[in-house]
């Protein structure tokens, strides 16, 4: 008997329907064959399905079983076909009634018949959403991922036995209730709060601008002045993800298998801080069947590169394209995949290898050659893509005092977040009807459309551009930063004062 079960394959963030055709033939030498460009993990489904069925108290028919995963030319990977194959074998061998409703099956089986967390459930749900009235049967631990999708009935399956009882209509499985995407309102300063960082008012201001407009920020200064602490405070002041953004981010984490079981949706902006030993494939994405890299995992969030000159040059140059396009295209033998990678880059560097160049009191011990070599590791094109550069200078001893409260006007993370959220609200109003979220994502056309510079502000910029020889890209980027500063001030148009502040952060390290 031939049975067809519906499932899917995820290629990058694309979902392609897969028909799992199972034939249990009465004639022919017994065997279990899977065809359809199956990877090793899919091939091994044979043993898992067989054992899981026997251990769940079903018969594994000693007959010629042929499984075809169509379309045949699409490579299939992962253990998610265990469940559709098992259901197909059960129906084809007459141990289960034929399915009546449209349903999709997806999940990895454990040898005892329980279903294990499987990656890519959210993508399955989003695909099922495009079909009318489809239901999906997915592993219980991963099922919450799918509850955010409106028009899909999600059945959390604990074990193979539970599912068979449900399909036999003896003990039904209760579908999960739909959930609406709640963006987290409660404030959480995260690892460090801005108020705990002594001094550095200008750096804090730059951090707020970066968070508000999604601009790239370079912090430079001697060791121990708070660059890393400032970066770690950033997650606390970033605005919550909007529902659409949350879906975009969760999709990436779902295909990477990085969602903890039971998680439904990510509401916090990602903050990724890869070590400087990261490989090109780790940062940009790669592998024989391309997986998202750090730039994609930082999508709509922050990519923090601490000690940026220590990253290998070839790896670092790889982030140039995603910084400009907001996406990476990865081409490998197994296929061609595009992942979104629209991140805010926060980089921290020392002025020289010893770290004390330009320090008010300590002498730098580096030679000119060493400094030049160190600086050379940051290429011009990367620096040109950084909108905000800020010096994190050594802190005066006075401000460090623990026992006496010196400064009560320090910006707290809570205040900063309010400012950022307000500025983002203005931006989302501005960009309604476009695919943009922040000022930094504007292309030249949008800058002209939404920039709203006053003539004085533009003149001011022109003067600076001539004097310092800004590139065309820097020119546009300065307008974007000025736009964010104006948004933080609640101003309709960009005034010279906003442009002046934007120019302040355009110093070269």
């Amino acid at each position, binding site marked *: 008997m031939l049975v067809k079960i519906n499932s899917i394959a995820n290629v990058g963030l694309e979902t392609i329907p897969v028909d799992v055709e199972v034939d249990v033939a009465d004639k*022919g*030498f*017994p065997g279990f064959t899977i065809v359809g460009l199956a990877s090793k993990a899919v091939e091994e489904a044979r043993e898992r399905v067989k054992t899981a069925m026997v251990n769940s108290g079903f018969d594994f028919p*000693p007959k010629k079983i042929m499984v075809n995963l169509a379309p045949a030319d699409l490579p299939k990977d992962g253990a998610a076909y265990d469940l559709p194959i098992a259901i197909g074998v059960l129906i084809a061998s007459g141990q289960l009634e034929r399915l009546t409703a449209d349903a999709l099956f997806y999940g990895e089986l454990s040898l005892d018949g329980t279903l294990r967390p499987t990656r890519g459930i959210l993508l399955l749900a989003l695909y099922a959403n495009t079909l009318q009235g489809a239901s999906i049967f997915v592993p219980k631990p991963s099922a919450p991922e799918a509850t955010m999708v409106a028009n899909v009935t999600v059945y959390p399956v604990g074990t193979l036995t539970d599912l068979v009882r449900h399909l036999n209509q003896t003990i039904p499985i209760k579908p999960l209730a739909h959930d609406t995407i709640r963006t987290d309102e409660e404030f959480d300063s995260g690892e460090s709060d801005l108020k705990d960082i002594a001094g550095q008012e200008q750096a804090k201001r730059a951090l707020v601008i970066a968070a508000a407009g999604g601009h790239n920020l370079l912090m430079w200064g001697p060791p121990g002045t708070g660059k890393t602490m400032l970066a770690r405070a950033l997650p606390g002041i970033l605005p919550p993800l909007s529902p659409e953004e949350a879906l975009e981010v969760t999709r990436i984490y779902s295909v990477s298998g990085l969602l903890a079981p039971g998680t439904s949706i990510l509401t916090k902006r990602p903050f990724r801080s890869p070590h400087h030993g990261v490989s090109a494939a780790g940062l940009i994405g790669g592998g024989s069947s391309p997986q998202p890299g750090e730039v994609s995992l930082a999508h709509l969030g922050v990519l923090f590169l601490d000690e940026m000159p220590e990253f290998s040059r070839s790896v670092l140059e790889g982030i140039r394209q995603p910084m400009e396009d907001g996406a990476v295209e990865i081409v490998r033998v197994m296929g061609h995949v595009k992942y979104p990678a629209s991140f805010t880059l926060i980089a921290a560097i020392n002025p020289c290898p010893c770290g004390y160049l330009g320090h008010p009191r300590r002498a730098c011990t580096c030679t000119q050659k060493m400094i030049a070599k160190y600086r050379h590791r940051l290429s011009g094109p990367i620096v040109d893509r950084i909108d905000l550069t800020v010096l994190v200078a050594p802190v005066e001893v006075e401000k460090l005092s623990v026992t006496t409260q010196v400064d009560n006007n320090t910006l707290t993370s809570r205040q900063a977040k309010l400012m950022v959220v307000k500025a983002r609200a203005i931006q989302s109003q501005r960009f309604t009807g476009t695919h943009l979220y922040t000022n930094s994502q504007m292309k030249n056309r949008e800058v002209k459309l939404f920039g709203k510079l006053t003539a004085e502000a533009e003149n001011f910029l022109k003067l600076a551009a001539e004097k310092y020889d800004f590139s065309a890209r820097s020119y546009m980027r300065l307008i974007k930063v000025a736009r964010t500063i104006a948004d933080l001030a609640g101003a309709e148009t960009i005034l010279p004062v906003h442009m002046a502040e934007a120019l302040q952060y355009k110093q070269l390290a």
Partner: protein
Amino acid sequence: MKKFNRQTGASAENIAANHLIEKGYGILERNFRNKFGEIDIIAKDKNILVFVEVKAKIGGDFGLPEEMISKGKLQRVRNMATMYMNGELLPCRIDVVAIVLDENNEVVRLTHYENVY
């Protein structure tokens, strides 16, 4: 135990050969062997040369006889068949006879699978 297995195998091969004769096959060779392996039965079904692998099991505690025939085993039978035909291109096929016996070597089930390779 080894000895018993051989006895079981020999009696199973007799049972299989009788079954094939009943079906109207002509037996050409029994236990055709050289240093590369062995073919249990070589028979002739009308004008088709049939290479038969016999597998027997006592009881069901250790699985089905069918499960004991792997791709590799069939490949060996195929290689042996090629050697038997010695370069001639004859119409031929490979069959498997699976036999389940009880403790008294009585046949519980006999299944003849045709053209398995």
